[in-house]
């Protein structure tokens, strides 16, 4: 392992020179962990996530991390993450589909416990019958716990979002977990070009005292710390305390937005802001959407793209603004419930402009033609030919 020197967070994320590598999404996530000065990672295998945690284990063996182990199961892994974070360590773990659901009770308690962990979510179907295919319905289960949820389109995003996640999670005015999701296999097991900053640089050490809550390490007065005391006596004060705490978690989530602007160039990416029809997509559906928009433009159609990078905090006003003149909105998704469509519908006026789909699920790929069909329908173009470009 090369000697790593600590560099300023902004320098590493925004300015450091980058070198292009052709790597998988799993490698991209591990490359981010390599530069994040992580203290501890706790692993539990599940396809298609395992490779990420294999690679992180190798990083530990090389000396990049101080501790790493394979936990007994997901609940144990995510509870141990909570323990390690309270002890003041910088922590990372990753999971997929059923693993996320198995550990959900622990994960959804992280924001309230102010656990600034970074969680990789390499999506996989959760519905029976069992399957290991990519399907991102699991993200919808994460949306209401208070965590920041970023959705990566490709290997480059996986790297950038994961490295930024450590910085965002530990901002004193945020200090909640950041989940970085991407589609299993499509991104984790496929290679893409990723511009990487030097591997001999790392983020500054975690300073556990730069935190809105004290670490539980017996180092700071007063002695009577009840950081996690339950609030459940039935009186007005306890309701109030809990209510205020919940509000604070969601405010922390909202405060993450300014760092998403700083490190990820904003929560959305827009192509052709004056378009008549928009395709709104996140994750690797955005890659297909990008293609559909490119084809449409080649055909002379006025179609634009809104790629949503941050699902939580959800870019309400940004989306409202960019879609204000849209005649129709197509939201391709890799899940049956259409959680992104629901999110978009909930923040725009005249939300019947959002067409229902296209959606693929169970692990299918998303043909660009399906997106184009919806675009044609909105524009009243009758076409039964396949796209030929």
């Amino acid at each position, binding site marked *: 392992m090369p000697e790593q020197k600590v560099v300023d967070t902004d320098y590493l994320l925004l300015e450091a020179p980058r070198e292009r590598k052709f790597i998988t999404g799993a490698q991209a996530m591990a490359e981010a962990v390599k530069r994040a000065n992580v203290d501890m990672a706790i692993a539990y295998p599940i396809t298609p996530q395992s490779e990420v945690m294999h690679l992180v284990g190798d990083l530990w063996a090389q000396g990049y991390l101080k501790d790493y182990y394979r936990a*007994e199961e997901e609940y*144990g892994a995510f509870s*141990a993450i909570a323990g390690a*974070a309270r*002890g003041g360590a910088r922590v990372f773990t990753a999971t997929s589909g059923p693993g996320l659901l198995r550990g959900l009770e622990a994960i959804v308690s992280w924001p309230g416990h102010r656990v600034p962990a970074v969680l990789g979510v390499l999506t996989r179907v959760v519905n029976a019958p069992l399957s290991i295919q990519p399907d991102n319905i699991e993200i919808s289960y994460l949306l209401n716990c208070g965590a920041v949820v970023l959705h990566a389109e490709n290997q480059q995003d996986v790297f950038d979002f994961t490295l930024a996640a450590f910085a965002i999670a530990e901002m004193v005015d945020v200090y909640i977990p950041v989940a970085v999701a991407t589609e299993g296999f499509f991104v984790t097991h496929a290679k893409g070009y990723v511009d990487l900053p030097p591997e001999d640089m790392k983020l500054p050490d975690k300073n556990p005292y730069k935190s809105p809550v004290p670490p539980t390490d*017996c180092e700071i007065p007063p002695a009577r710390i009840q950081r996690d005391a339950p609030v459940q006596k039935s009186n007005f004060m306890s309701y109030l305390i809990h209510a205020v705490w919940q509000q604070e978690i969601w405010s922390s989530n909202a405060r993450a937005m300014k760092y998403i602007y700083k490190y990820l160039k904003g929560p959305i990416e827009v192509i052709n802001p004056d378009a008549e029809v928009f395709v709104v997509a996140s994750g690797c559906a955005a890659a297909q959407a990008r293609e559909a928009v490119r084809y449409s433009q080649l055909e002379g159609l006025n179609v634009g793209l809104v790629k949503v990078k941050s699902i939580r905090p959800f870019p309400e006003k940004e989306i409202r603004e960019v879609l204000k003149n849209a005649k129709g909105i197509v939201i391709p998704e890799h899940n049956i419930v259409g959680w992104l469509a629901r999110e978009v519908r909930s923040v725009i006026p005249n939300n019947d402009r959002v067409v229902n789909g296209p959606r693929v699920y169970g692990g299918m790929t998303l043909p660009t033609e399906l997106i184009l069909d919806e675009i044609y329908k909105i524009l009243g173009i009758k076409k039964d030919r396949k796209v030929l470009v």
Partner: protein
Amino acid sequence: MGLEYVRITTGFEDYMPKDYVDLVKYGQFGKEYDIQELGTFKELLEEHPMCAGCFMAYFVRVFYASLPNPEDTIVIGTAGCARLALSQAAVPFIYGNYGDTNAVASGLKRALKIRFPDKEKDVVVVAGDGGLMDIGFGMTMHSWFRRENFTTIMVDNEVYGNTGGQESGMTRKGIQLKMAPKGKKFDKINVVELAKAAGCVYVARISPTNPKRIAKTIKRAILAARHFGPTFIHAYTSCNIEYSIPTEKVLEDARKREKEDFAFYEYMTDEVKEYFEQIENKGKQQPSEVKA
């Protein structure tokens, strides 16, 4: 840390709550009280909302009074009765989700080892039979298999006290309780044997009838965990509500159970034994010397 953390910042003496001033002046931090002196010093645990006459509450009180190093101890609990008192003490307390104690403790202890390689930070789990042997069974066992350096204390009231009296895996066979309307179907889990088999280096079973012995057992479990691996105490702490034990009969019941099936039992590995011989024969130990 050291005792800096229980010192009052100069200039604030007049403004600190009486409770805190008493802790600094007469509390256990940095001192080694004998458990027989209970009542003559300011205890870490002041008040709690557990049922009057609850034997578990008594055990928690003795537990806090027995800590070898309270100023550097973190207690981990979970849903269940014990945490009602555990969270009311002058020792940092972590309350996770039901049954996750030993996983949280694993992460915490490792993080503290990374951050404070030269200091002893004791992590102690105190949780009910349901929390450790039912819902948290896997996490309990695996923390032992992984040889994590912390102590687990099971306060076994043989019932789910906190949710109103359902049977647990530690309930004795045949006992009729809520959710076991026809009586418990299988034997009480032999957790002491499990702990040994799973790799605990120090294991004790007690019916807490003798405070001196409780204190010694707790100290031993915590000291052994620092150096050698996981340690476990199985303590009978009856629930006088669900088992209808009148308050004045609680100790009598504990003695009866001690004779029947909770006889004092202690197991330790040879190296732990050798260690205790070394430190305990030196006479009264100061906590700093005990740190080895």
